[in-house]
Structure formats: structure tokens, C-alpha cells
């Protein structure tokens, strides 16, 4: 048994149901259960990612875990698979309370996770990947023959035509996924966690994957299945657990419910009062028009308009193409077709420089990665997109002008910073976001794309950013709000463009729509007539 594995003394096979039934549904206590997670809580700095969540899995069952982005599904799976440590609660595996300290611990015990972004080494062979860090040896050397023969057995069991000696990098994503499954088999997995396994597969590959899942079920493997594609659950899933905002909502037999029931449980009914009152009024004047925009293989034929005074929402699941569309409009990525016009004038945008000159700004999803120069000062970040305004023709920076500009932005946006010379990385997330917004306001942008502007920032800062969005719209600046949080769409936008797998499936009037309806468009169940 690996270090920190199973502690028999802590086993609580018959714990009273009342003590743990904090959720709305009672937690099943079947003897079939191979895995029971009770009252799991996990706190990250500033966020309660999981709040007393329950989950259980039977042998030979496919149990789907559903929830919106940020509901806590991945966090829960990372705790079960040993990547994160829980703060509260118990994970009981095969009747014993477990404290897995690492992925390796969990794997050794029989719990394997296949991540959405596959964890394979492209420059090694299939067999080398399957046996990475546990290579069979003969003396001090790797026994390559045995390794490849053993790997081939598992590949053959999956009935996939992959040779163990092939390089992983030469395989398609679907086949790489099969390699991951073969690896799970070789680890004698009794619990297999699959995170969005079908997101990059074709229809026939999905069919093959589902056959394999059925076979694994027959062998008694318990499978936890995370997917946004609610329509495909019917084909393999036995039970569904729904989470929302880090909390457990319900566990139901799939046979007893409909897709609509799942969606309703996912989005919840109440829209909390966490948004400021909208003061801007959309007019009829179209300031920004995107027509037939395409980027081959990423998104197709995306068209939308933005009116003066309007906040336009982009809704959709992760990977639906919202960010990609914004980046293409902004010139950060190449587009293969389509036109963009601003104020009735067609724009030629080949690079962000063109877009910025035209008055378009894009506030990226991942601030640290592509929004903020974290090692530079607040001042330098604010003026970065508009150095011309604070320097003379020879490129010499006018210190006084730059300081005034930065101070004005900091005051206007109420950025909490000890000084404008503070290094940006020492600001809180909300204040960093304000600095990025300040950068684009200083540039006098006419259309701003906000990509997940409130991700990872606290409630108070969120409210301040909502107020700011409203103020921008009132000042006649076109605002596009890309967000995965439907309450944000409903609370802040006037209209919403819904994306599904690189296409616009609907453009809805926010006042006349519901979270359920948006989810239906976002999951591809419904689409507007072309």
C-alpha cells in the first residue's frame, strides 16, 4: 500500500445517513458502491470551490457529472484522483477511507483520470507512454520487448489498430485517447474518470469510445463521465449528478429524467441580485457589424451586430468559439473569411495594431497570460497601448504626462494600489482587471470585447466591473461581454449571441429569454432557423 493510502481504522461503512444528507437527495449507501465521497469541501484563496459535495459510484456503472463551467466538477475529480487534497469530508474507496497524496497513489489503488487535455508525451512511443515511470526492466535496462508486448495486449483488447511501437505524436487525438484508455486498463483501473472525452472526437470515433465504455462497464469498472454534451448521455449513462456553484444539487437515474431537467438543475432557478441597475439604453444605430466571419476549422460564418449603447453577450460552452471569434475580430488570429465594419466603414484588420488603430479593444480571458505585463508597473500597463499619447515624436516618454494619465485612470476606475509605480502582479485579481480596462479606456476604444472579465475576482470587484460596463455602454462605447456565467448574461446584456461548436445557434433578446433557453442553444439542442 502506498504512503498515505488506505486507513482501515477510519472506515465508516454504515455512517448514519442523516449526518451526511446535507444535500437535497439522500446519499446512497449501496454495498455496490466502489467509491463514496461525502461532504467534500475545498477552499482556494478567496473562493470556496467545493461546499460539502456528495458523490458516489457503483461498480459497472457510468455516472455522469454535470454542471456549468466553474460548478466544481473538475475540482471534485482532482480530489478523487489525488491531485488536490480535500479540506473537509471523506472519500471512501472500496470500503476504506482514503487519503491519496498524489495521482500515483490513486493510480496504484485503481483510480485513473483521463484529462480533457491528454497527458501524453508526443515524442515517445505508445508503449513508452503507457509504461512511463513504471517501465518493465531487465537488470538496469528497460525491457523494451516486454513493454511493447504488454502494451499491445491492452491495445488489442480495445480492438484499436494501434501499434505499441508507434510514436504518440503521429496519432490522431481520438487514437491518443485510446492510448490513455489502454494505459488505464494497464493500471488495472477500477474507477475511470473521463473529463470531456468526446470533445475532440468525430461521430464514428465517439461510437467506438462508447462501445469500449460498455465493455469496461461489463468488466465491473466504475466510470465517472464528465460531458457538456447532454444529448449523448442517454447512450451510456446510468445516473447523473448535478453540481452548481461548488455545491451538490441532485443525483438521479437518467431513465427518470429529461435533458431539460438536467439543464434546470444545472442553472438553478434564482437569479441573485448581484448586478447593478442598467442605465444605458440600446439605440437602433448599428455601430459595429461582423458578417460571415470564419476561421477554417475553428468557427464558421459568424455574424452579429452591435448597437450604440448596447451590451452584447456571447454565451456558449467552453470551446464553443467565442474567444476565437473575438480574437479574429481583433486581428490576433487570422480569419479565413468575413468582414468587419465600424461606424459604417469597412475595416481591414490584419494585426492587433490595425484593430487598435480602428478603435477595437480586446480584454483577454487570461489576464496573466495575455492581458497584463505582470512584471511591469501599473503605470506602464495603463499606457502600454497608447504610448504615442504620452511621448513626443522622437519616442521620448513625457514622465509628467504619463503619470497624470495613469493617476487619472487609477482614480476613475478606483484601482486599489499603493501607487502607480506598483508592480502589477502584486494587485488583487479585480484590481489587475481594472488596470487592463484602464489601458483600453486610455486608448479611447470604441468597441471593447470583455472576455470573462470577472473570472477569479471577488464579488465586490465584480460589481464594480459591471457598473463600469454599464457606464461604457451609456457613453456610447460598444461593449461585447463574453462570459460562461449565464447569470452575468441575463443580468448585464441587452442581447445575447449563443455559440455552439463554432457556430452561432441563436441571437436572443435577453429580456425575453431564460437560462434554460440559452443552455439549449448552447448545447446544440435548439438552433435558430437559418
Amino acid at each position: 500500500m502506498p504512503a498515505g493510502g488506505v486507513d482501515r481504522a477510519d472506515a465508516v461503512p454504515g455512517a448514519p445517513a442523516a449526518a451526511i444528507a446535507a444535500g437535497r437527495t439522500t446519499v446512497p449507501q449501496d454495498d455496490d458502491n466502489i467509491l463514496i465521497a461525502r461532504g467534500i469541501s475545498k477552499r482556494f484563496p478567496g473562493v470556496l470551490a467545493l461546499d460539502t459535495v456528495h458523490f458516489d459510484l457503483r461498480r459497472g456503472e457510468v455516472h455522469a457529472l454535470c454542471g456549468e463551467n466553474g460548478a466544481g466538477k473538475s475540482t471534485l475529480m482532482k480530489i478523487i484522483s489525488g491531485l488536490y487534497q480535500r479540506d473537509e469530508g471523506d472519500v471512501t474507496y472500496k470500503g476504506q477511507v482514503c487519503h491519496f497524496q498524489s495521482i500515483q497513489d490513486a493510480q496504484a489503488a485503481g483510480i485513473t483520470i483521463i484529462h480533457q487535455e491528454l497527458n501524453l508525451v508526443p515524442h515517445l512511443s505508445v508503449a513508452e507512454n503507457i509504461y512511463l515511470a513504471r517501465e518493465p526492466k531487465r537488470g538496469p535496462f528497460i525491457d523494451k520487448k516486454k513493454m511493447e508486448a504488454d502494451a499491445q495486449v491492452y491495445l488489442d483488447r480495445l480492438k484499436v489498430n494501434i501499434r505499441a511501437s508507434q510514436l504518440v505524436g503521429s496519432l490522431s487525438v481520438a487514437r491518443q485517447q485510446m492510448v490513455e484508455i489502454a494505459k488505464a486498463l494497464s493500471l488495472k483501473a477500477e474507477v475511470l474518470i473521463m473529463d470531456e472525452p468526446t470533445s475532440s472526437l468525430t461521430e464514428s470515433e465517439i461510437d467506438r469510445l462508447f462501445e469500449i465504455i460498455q465493455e469496461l462497464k461489463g468488466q465491473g469498472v466504475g466510470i465517472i463521465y464528465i460531458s457538456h454534451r447532454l444529448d449523448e448521455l442517454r447512450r451510456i449513462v446510468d445516473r447523473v449528478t448535478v453540481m452548481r456553484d461548488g455545491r451538490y444539487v441532485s443525483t438521479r437515474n437518467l431513465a427518470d429524467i429529461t435533458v431539460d431537467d438536467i439543464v434546470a438543475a444545472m442553472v438553478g432557478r434564482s437569479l441573485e441580485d448581484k448586478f447593478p441597475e442598467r442605465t444605458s439604453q440600446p439605440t437602433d444605430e448599428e455601430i459595429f457589424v461582423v458578417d460571415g466571419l470564419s476561421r477554417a476549422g475553428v468557427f464558421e460564418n459568424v455574424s452579429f451586430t452591435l448597437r450604440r449603447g448596447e451590451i452584447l453577450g456571447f454565451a456558449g460552452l467552453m470551446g464553443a468559439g467565442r474567444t476565437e471569434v473575438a480574437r479574429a475580430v481583433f486581428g490576433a488570429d487570422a480569419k479565413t473569411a468575413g468582414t468587419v465594419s465600424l461606424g459604417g466603414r469597412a475595416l481591414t484588420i490584419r494585426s492587433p495594431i490595425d484593430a487598435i488603430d480602428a478603435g477595437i479593444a480586446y480584454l483577454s480571458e487570461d489576464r496573466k497570460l495575455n492581458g497584463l505585463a505582470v512584471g511591469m508597473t501599473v503605470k506602464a500597463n495603463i499606457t502600454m497601448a497608447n504610448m504615442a499619447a504620452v511621448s513626443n515624436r522622437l519616442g521620448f516618454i513625457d514622465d509628467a504626462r504619463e503619470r497624470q494619465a495613469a493617476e487619472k485612470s487609477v482614480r476613475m476606475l478606483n484601482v486599489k494600489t499603493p501607487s502607480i509605480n506598483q508592480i502589477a502582479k502584486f494587485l488583487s485579481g479585480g484590481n489587475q482587471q481594472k488596470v487592463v480596462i484602464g489601458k483600453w479606456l486610455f486608448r479611447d476604444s470604441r468597441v471593447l470585447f470583455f472576455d470573462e472579465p470577472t473570472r477569479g475576482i471577488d464579488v465586490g470587484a465584480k460589481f464594480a466591473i459591471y457598473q463600469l460596463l454599464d457606464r461604457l455602454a451609456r457613453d456610447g462605447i460598444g461593449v461585447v461581454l463574453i462570459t460562461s456565467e449565464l447569470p452575468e448574461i441575463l443580468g448585464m446584456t441587452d442581447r445575447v449571441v449563443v455559440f455552439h461548436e463554432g457556430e452561432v445557434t441563436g441571437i436572443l433578446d435577453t429580456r425575453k429569454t431564460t437560462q434554460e433557453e440559452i443552455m439549449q442553444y448552447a448545447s446544440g439542442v435548439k438552433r435558430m432557423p437559418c
Partner: protein
Amino acid sequence: MTVTDTVFQERKIKINRNDLIQKFAALAGLILLVIVFSFTSDAFLTTNNGVTLALQTTSIAFLGFGATCVIITGGIDLSVGSVLALAGVIAGMAVKGGMPVAIAMALGVVAGGLCGLINGLIITRLKLPPFIATLGMMMVARGVALQITGARPVSGLGDDFGELGNGALMRILDVGANGLPKVVFPGIPYPVIVMIVLAIAIAVLLMKTTFGRHLYAIGSNEEAARLSGVNVTRTKIGAYVLSGVLAGLCGCILMSRLVTAQPNEGVAYELDAIASAVIGGTSLMGGVGTISGTVIGAFIIGILRNGLNMNGVSSFIQMITIGLVIIVTVWIDQMRNRR
């Protein structure tokens, strides 16, 4: 909010303290070296040795300034040692061909800039890693220098050619008792003056101009800079051209000091340049670095060499010492950043 604000304050004080430690650790190290060497050797702390030392440090400093600019963008320039040889050789051959010295040297500097331009184009257009691009240029430039000279030094360049490297401002001569001129004050050598002017000019470039700001922005977060409308391609090319120009100038001055154009000059100088930048606090990860730091770094290397020499320490021990100094300084830098 008050809680967070206090945290900010505390952090800020901590940062400033750490910054001070880093900045003054290098400077204190430099001063310590001076004190130690002035005790161990009588000849160390004299005007003559001071001038010699400054003169010896100039070539590390010229190349170090260029290295600093390039490393701030997150890049590296390994070609400068070879580029300076090529530039010096071109200047020498031009003089041999009858050109006035000033124009010949300008030609050498332009050749250096051209090498930098090619580096920049390869890095930004062909999208090769800077390490590879400049490693290639290091070999190509050296090869060209050796080829065009037939691997022979170009000599007989005349006194004018030696003026820039050997001349000095305010040199005071006195006629000695034996009738020969006696040097009362050796003057400030021209290369030292050039170094001071360049240090100030490039420091201003980094701190006060949009070009400098963009260098830091690219090194700090290239994607953020690109999405902010910074012309990343042009700025990066600018950094490599600057590095090449400085290498060209360094080559001309070095060859002028020797009054001979040596195609074998400057081997491994790029490593001294990178070392001086790194000792001075420039981060190889990009986004961080100052010219004042690089000046300190260059003098630490220069003083170590000079002082150890005067104490009769073998050149092998010198190498070991400088190597250890690099490791320890960067380790201190990392400690500061890890926190």
C-alpha cells in the same frame, strides 16, 4: 478592503527592501572587491591602474549594453564576439584600401548593425529561437572574418587607426629630467568616454523612450504586448540591430587599440557580455534589467580579472572565480524572485 490594503503595504515594503538588497548587493560586492584588492596590492588603487581597468572593461561594457537590451526582450545574442571581429576586420581592410579612418570605422559599425539585422529577421520572420539564430551568426560572422583576411591579421594600419583606441582626453605630459616625456596624468581614454556616453544614452533609451518601454513589455509578456498593439517584430529587430551596432563599435575600438585587425579577436566575449548583464540583475526570463546594473556587472568582471592578475593569481583560478561569482549572483537574484 483594509486588510488587503495592509497586505499591499507590507508586500511593497518587502519588495523595495529586496530590490535594494539586489541592487546594492552587486554594488557592495564591487566596492568590497576594490577594498580587498587595494589592501592586497599597492599598485591596484592608483590612477594609472584605474585608467587601465576602465579601458579593459570597456569592451565587456559595450557588448553588455547590447546583451542587456536583447535579454530584456527574453532573447539572447551569442554572435557579438564574432561580429566584433568581422566589423574590426572590415574597418581595417577599408583603411588598407585607402579609405579615411572615420569612414572605415563607420563601415565596420554598419557591418555589425547588418549582422544584428539579419539576426533579428531570422528570429522574427523565420521564427527561430534566438539561441539558434545567433549561434549560427556567431559561426558565420567568424567564418567570414577569417575568410576575407585569409586568417591573417591586417596590420600596418597607421597611427590614425590607433587614435580612437589609444588616445585620451586631458592627457598631461611633462618633460622629464632625461628629456623624455613623462606621463603626469594618463588622461581619460577615448573608449572610456564612449562607454560613459553610451551608458547614459542607452539608459535613457530604456527608461525614457517608447522603444525601451516596448522592450520591457515584450520580455514581460510578449502576447500582452502584441495584443496592446506593440509592434513586436520591429522592436525585437531593433534590439538585435542595437546589439550588432555595439558589437561593431566594440570591434573597431578593440582593433584600434591593437592597431591591427585581428580576425581571431573577441572569441567568447559574448559570454562576458551576458555575464555582466546577468550579474547586474538582468533576468534571462526577460522583462527585467538596467544599464546601471550592467555597468556594475562589467566592472565586477573587470576588477576581478585586473585585481587577481595583480595578485599573481593564475588565469585558470580567475576563470573559476568569475564562474562562481556568476552562479552566486544569479542564485541571489532567484531567491529574490522566488520569495
